[in-house]
């Protein structure tokens, strides 16, 4: 059968490399800094990339974290030391 709704296809597609929420979140800060630096984060962390493709909650957090890292206005405040 062809012409499956994209939403159903996405829902039912699973990737055995998917590391799950806990592992993805443990390295999300590093993953996002790689993205911000223009480095292929998915190449370094394929299991995390797979998870972000399937988990809306973690993907949304990754988007938010990337936006924060790239928002220079956020970093204009006081520095430590």
């Amino acid at each position, binding site marked *: 059968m062809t012409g499956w709704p994209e939403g159903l296809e996405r829902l039912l597609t699973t990737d055995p490399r998917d590391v799950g929420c806990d592992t993805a979140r443990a390295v999300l800060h590093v993953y996002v800094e790689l993205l911000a630096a223009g480095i292929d984060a998915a190449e370094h962390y394929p299991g995390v990339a797979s998870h972000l493709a399937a988990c809306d909650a973690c993907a949304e957090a990754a988007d938010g974290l990337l936006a924060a890292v790239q928002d220079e206005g956020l970093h204009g405040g006081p520095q*430590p030391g």
Partner: protein
Amino acid sequence: MKSEGSESLPQVRVVSPEVARENRAWVDDLSSNGDRREFASRRLYEVLLRAARAEVGRRAARLRLVGPEVDDIAHQAAADALLAICGKVETFRGDCKFTTWAYKFVIFDVAAKVNRHFWQRSGVAFDDDDWDRLPARLGIEPEAHAESRELMQAVHRAVDENLTAKQRIVFVALVLNGMPTDVLADQLGATQNAIYKMMFDARRKLRTALVDAGYLAEQQIA
């Protein structure tokens, strides 16, 4: 899905000497006592509050959240994130900017607070299994609902016949009702990772059932 901790995640990030110095200053200041720690906490709170406001704003626009409650969420998230960061500062490994690591706390805190707030207002029970919602939840346009009826019935049947009781609850809450994973985890007293794993297994079972029934081709992983 790989079992928890089974992937050896590589250390691929080496920060610059300047970033390493800033990181050390944050960690030392927040690990100290008295005024030094207090001053660093206040500085970090300002940074977190700016990030929280930006993140709440990003999410609120999509969820149509408005009013003073939006700023309240940002303040609460910044305060809660600061507390969590101060409690875990010694676990910071220095593999990114300290602020990036700190932002992660506040981003997830904002997500949890916004999701809870939005869900409380939605008026939908997580176990309300109205299957008429399925086509819309899967992004099927109303004009295509009639032709997708057989398929939707097959999905419903596969859920009833192949999933465990817990997997069915998770499917209904997340897919039919659009409940955020973290809110469902709270309600079921589970971790988000456990809910994700349950749903992951459910998705695999449903695909297998629909493939076996001739509704779907075998999955190809790139």
